[in-house]
């Protein structure tokens, strides 16, 4: 039952993400590409590219897109696939909703700061590892197809890291390069 699985996967993604949007990519990739094979590694990379260029949080963007594509790839018609994107998007928000509404009052009054801080001691360095894993998993033959690929990677890396160029500009430049190079 793909809808129940989508719900469970995105609920887990929402519940266990502590490291922001990029760390969430690692969770999304594990659930959608490796565990359930709803998306090919290529499709996953394409979703990240599209999420980077559209408004809204990447966690929501990727849930909507992956929910739709996963159901479509399982052989359902597009109208049913829309339901998949609704389920994935709602499920990824649901854990925060339940958690915040149930402990919001307690949090604003006297926060158990020490336990919170303790829980985050290793979560912060762990989140760095999660983001790195997401990047490493994408270094494969689907994404690096020829000798031009590593050059494009290096150019984008330098533009973002050294010159702090906005990702949207980088993606627009790369799209133009694609039309000219391939």
């Amino acid at each position: 039952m793909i809808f129940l699985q989508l719900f469970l996967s995105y609920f887990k993604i929402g519940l266990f993400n502590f490291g922001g949007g990029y760390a969430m990519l690692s969770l999304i990739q594990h659930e959608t590409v490796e565990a359930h094979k709803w998306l090919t590694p290529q499709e996953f990379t394409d979703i990240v590219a599209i999420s980077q260029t559209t408004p809204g949080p990447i966690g929501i963007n990727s849930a909507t897109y992956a929910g739709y594509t996963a159901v479509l790839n399982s052989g359902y018609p597009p109208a049913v696939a829309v339901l998949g994107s609704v389920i994935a998007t709602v499920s990824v928000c649901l854990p925060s909703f339940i958690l915040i509404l149930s402990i919001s009052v307690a949090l604003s009054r006297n926060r158990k700061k020490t336990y919170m801080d303790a829980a985050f001691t290793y979560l912060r360095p762990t989140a760095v590892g999660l983001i790195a894993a997401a990047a490493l998993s994408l270094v494969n033959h689907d994404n690096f197809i020829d000798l031009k690929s590593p050059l494009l990677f290096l150019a984008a890396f330098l533009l973002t890291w050294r010159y702090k160029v906005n990702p949207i500009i980088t993606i627009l430049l790369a799209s133009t390069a694609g039309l000219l190079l391939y």
Partner: protein
Amino acid sequence: MYHALFFVFLRIGAFTIGGGYAMLPLIEREVTRRKWMSRENFLDAFAISQTMPGVFAVNMSILIGYRLRKTAGAIVCTLATIIPSFLIILTIAIFFTQVQDNLYVEKIFKALRPVVVALIAVPSLTAAKAAHINLRTAPIPIVVAMLIWAAGISPIYIVILAIAAGLAQHIFVK
């Protein structure tokens, strides 16, 4: 009030490109300008949002909506925040699945894919800086990345382990 909440958060959802933290200045301006919240309360909501799991911008919407109009307010704000990106992405998904075999779309994405890898590699380095990774803590992200990437272990187990280790150290090691 619900009407105003809905449209303010709709605007926040529609006009911020670049993820949750990019939304922050816009949320702060809208919320304090309308005197919905003091700056202290806003910063409080910001701190709680960071410690909660999930999508940061959604957490902010839930907290602010709840402060102002309880559960109904939280639902209205969350829906308003996610509706723009939901509709945009759904349109693209429907469209893209039909054109992805198009010659020009293929050309564009052949060049985009290695670029996306770079766009994720950079935040792993900036996150390392922000988390003050030094020689003593460097093995943690390296081992985590290897466990997920090379050994295929679910990130969920690693997150649970990290929380447990932090709490255990706090309770047993003084």
